[in-house]
């Protein structure tokens, strides 16, 4: 903490020019907002894709004029082809997982609030921070290029000049192999199907670039948290958000390099004639595949899921942190079992590295290792249950203020339980026999890593918006947004379980081929209608977000009567956060309703003598000791 006593070490003057202030900014707050805006843009693309998929599933043959105009080949006469559908599946997954669920929770809110919550004036490496955003942004542009390189004949023509494996213009909006990109389908090039030329190359390059951006970010988060906490900010006094961002950064640091390596190997298989993932003797589209020998398709699956499973926690841990933080604030109660919560975050993160094989029970890997992965997978339910119990404990005996961020945080708990609990079904080898790659799986991961994470981010947005922009978001619009979205996501994803029970395979462009799926029509239609309504209501959120930035009620420094450091400084905070003053921390992060204290909350910076109630912190058990450390 030497830095904290010499604040000038990390100080840099506020930039004056537009470009250094808003574009290539070194300020973690601006970079955080850039990440959030990137996620807000990417999620629109991802959502439009999901609606197009639902329309195709419920009303096959629908003519959409705009589709014909934009993608004359992939949607001849405005009707989507099966390969176009599959490319939507791939791009929806890729955009949502990487550019929404990994950017907003960590790069966005983490970047903005981690330094402030620990009392630092910026990240440890501001230039690295700026680079991590812009590298990520380039990754997104490359992914968008994949859409047009395959979807548009002219752009496809340009890209094709890069070489044979870059053949584009197949009429899809990208690869058709899903976001998991299993070889050999993804490794063989355009002979394996439309979208598998330029689409896959650009898709791999985009993800590789994304990995680099995430690594830069992860290094920065870890260093900042370990080295730049202000005086008195012991680890056990940190808000749980910081613990979540810290754990997430460790997961990213250890998992993204593996995906990066895997991506490079896959690209080499495609453009340099290597055979990491391509076995010999293949016969594809009427001819033998020459020159490849000895590769293993399973190797990719191991590399991919070694990254892919921790990625689930990268998406959801920040949401857990935000939820704990927001529940405590509006319950006006300390977090129940602070220490248990910290251990649970670490247990989830740690165990998360030993369960990737549950994606591969039926892949052809050793059935013995499947047993080990299965038992480890179900054990991860234990720390997840601990978190749920502690959230309920936090709300027990509370005095709940039902603000919009609180509603979304409660929604997070409900959705996390609903989505997470079916992991107990899917994690069993004997049940995966049936459920693997059915809609039961789609239901599980959408609820838990998709929707629950997004609810965490909505909660965070409504909660921190006043700090970021100095104005409140509109509460009535926020509540309307909550209610329709909360009911809507349940209406979409609960019926997915029923489809899974029928045996409905995921990634099917149509269910009309199979008799065993014919009872699913009403469910499919119900989900489509629910999805369209839920997506439409998000317009209200966007309106509220941008309207409130200029017209919202002016927020004071601490509109929610919260305790942590970000609420001690002006809204929005000055360039160097604490205006050169080094904050000193005397309390844990969640001192609400302390008996005998003048207010029902004690700021972390309030000196000991003033808040006599702090002495009681240690008396009532769990988190108390930590808070006094």
């Amino acid at each position, binding site marked *: 903490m030497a830095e904290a006593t010499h604040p000038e070490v990390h100080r840099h003057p506020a930039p004056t020019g537009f470009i250094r202030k808003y574009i290539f900014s070194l300020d973690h707050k601006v970079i955080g907002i850039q990440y959030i805006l990137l996620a807000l843009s990417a999620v629109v693309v991802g959502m439009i894709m999901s609606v197009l998929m639902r329309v195709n599933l419920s009303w096959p043959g629908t003519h959409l004029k705009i589709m014909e105009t934009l993608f004359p080949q992939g949607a001849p006469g405005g009707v989507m082809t099966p390969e176009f559908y599959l490319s939507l599946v791939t791009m929806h997954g890729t955009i949502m997982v990487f550019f929404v669920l990994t950017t907003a929770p960590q790069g966005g809110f983490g970047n903005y609030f981690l330094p402030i919550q620990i009392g630092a004036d910026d990240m440890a490496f501001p230039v690295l921070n700026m680079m991590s955003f812009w590298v990520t942004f380039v990754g997104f542009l490359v992914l968008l290029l994949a859409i047009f390189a395959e979807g548009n004949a002219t752009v496809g023509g340009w890209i094709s000049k890069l070489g044979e494996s870059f053949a584009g213009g197949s009429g899809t909006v990208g690869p058709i192999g899903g976001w998991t990109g299993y070889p050999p389908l993804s490794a063989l090039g355009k002979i394996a199907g439309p979208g598998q030329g330029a689409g896959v190359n650009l898709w791999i390059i985009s993800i590789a670039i994304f990995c680099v951006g995430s690594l830069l970010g992860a290094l920065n988060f870890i260093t900042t948290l370990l080295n730049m906490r202000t005086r008195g900010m012991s680890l056990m006094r940190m808000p749980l958000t910081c613990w979540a961002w810290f754990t997430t950064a460790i997961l990213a640091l250890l998992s993204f390099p593996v995906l990066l390596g895997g991506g490079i190997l896959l690209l080499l298989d495609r453009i340099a004639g290597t055979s990491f993932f391509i076995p010999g003797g293949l016969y594809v589209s009427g001819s033998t595949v020459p020159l490849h020998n000895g590769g293993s398709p399973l190797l990719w699956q191991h590399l991919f899921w070694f990254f892919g499973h921790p990625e689930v926690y990268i998406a959801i841990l920040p949401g857990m942190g935000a939820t704990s933080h927001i529940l405590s604030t509006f319950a006006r109660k300390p977090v129940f*079992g602070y220490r248990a919560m910290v251990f649970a975050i670490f247990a989830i993160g740690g165990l998360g590295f030993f369960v990737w094989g549950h994606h591969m029970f039926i892949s*052809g890997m050793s059935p013995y290792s499947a047993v080990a992965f299965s*038992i480890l997978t179900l054990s991860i339910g234990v720390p997840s249950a601990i978190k749920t119990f502690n959230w309920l*404990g936090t709300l027990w*005996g509370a005095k709940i203020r039902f603000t919009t961020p609180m509603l979304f945080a409660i929604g997070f708990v409900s959705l996390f339980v609903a989505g997470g609990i079916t992991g107990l079904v899917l994690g069993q080898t004997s049940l995966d026999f049936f459920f693997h790659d059915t809609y039961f799986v789609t239901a599980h991961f959408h609820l838990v890593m998709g929707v629950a994470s997004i609810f965490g981010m909505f909660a965070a947005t409504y909660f921190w918006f006043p700090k970021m922009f100095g104005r409140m978001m509109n509460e009535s619009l926020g509540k309307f947004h909550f209610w329709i979205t909360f009911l809507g996501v349940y209406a979409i994803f609960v019926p997915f379980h029923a489809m899974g029970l029928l045996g409905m395979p995921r990634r099917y462009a149509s269910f009309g081929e199979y008799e065993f799926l014919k009872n699913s029509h009403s469910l499919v239609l119900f989900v489509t209608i629910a999805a369209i309504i839920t997506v439409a209501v998000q317009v209200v959120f966007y309106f509220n977000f941008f309207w409130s930035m200029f017209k919202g009620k002016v927020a004071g420094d601490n509109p929610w009567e919260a305790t942590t450091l970000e609420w001690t400084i002006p809204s929005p905070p000055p360039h160097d956060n604490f205006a050169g003053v080094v904050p000193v921390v005397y309390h844990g992060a969640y001192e609400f309703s302390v008996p005998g204290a003048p207010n029902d909350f004690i700021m972390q910076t309030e000196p000991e003598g003033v808040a006599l109630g702090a002495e009681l912190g240690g008396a009532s058990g769990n988190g108390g000791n930590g808070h006094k450390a």
Partner: protein
Amino acid sequence: MGRLLGIAIWLITIASVWMFLSGKWWFPASISEHGPRVDSQFTITIIVVGIAFTAAQVGLGWVVFKFRDNADKQRATYSHGNNRLEVIWTVVTAVIFISLAIMGQRVWASLHLHSAPPGSYQIEVVAQQFSWNFHYPGKDNVFGKTDPNLIDDSSLNFVGLDDSDPNAKDDSVVSTLAVPVNRPVELILRSKDVTHSFFVPQLRFKQDLVPGMGIHVHFTATKIGKYELACAELCGMNHYKMKSYMLVLPQNEFDELVALPQDKFQTKKDELFNKYQLPTY
């Protein structure tokens, strides 16, 4: 708002539980020896999951219903937690979850940790974009040699059967799977091009077919009839219609069929195909 939210969470819970209990959407009836054991393991699991889900949601609904802010109320309870409670719920969930995990290995172990029982009938399955090939060894019960270099779809040698091998003379390659009832069957799963997955919902069985690998699996079908076979691993543009059928035949019909040479095998198979009907759904 708290009351409304509490009630909404309860209603969502009731609707979700109803969806599982109504029986309107359930597995298609099982037709394999291990199928009923999968189903009962699922029933046990879904009861445990259902109770945990309901308890958590009802609890969440209750705390938001009960502990809403009202003006006359004193401050919230000041508590940092309770170590005893933490230990209790950690131990209880650990015991339940690990027990489920161990129980959940039994069917898997019985099929996958043992090789096929003696007397199993062997069939080689070769998947390709977007169709299925089933290779029968014929009367001699020995598979003819195959070689990927001999594969030629245009001359209908889909699996690369080597005609110069005497064992290959009586082999048949057809596009529908026929298996005997109540006799263990061992499949050798291969793929020519990309990864596919063998899925017959009624069989409660799914296994990927991976290029470069020959994966041995076994099961016993117990109910005569005709069932749909689907590909469950994304394999390309027509993945959704990579469809075939599995016929489960009485032993005598099966024996008669597999003793036939290729052309008669095909005709007989078509005849049997029309004889049996799909289950009603």
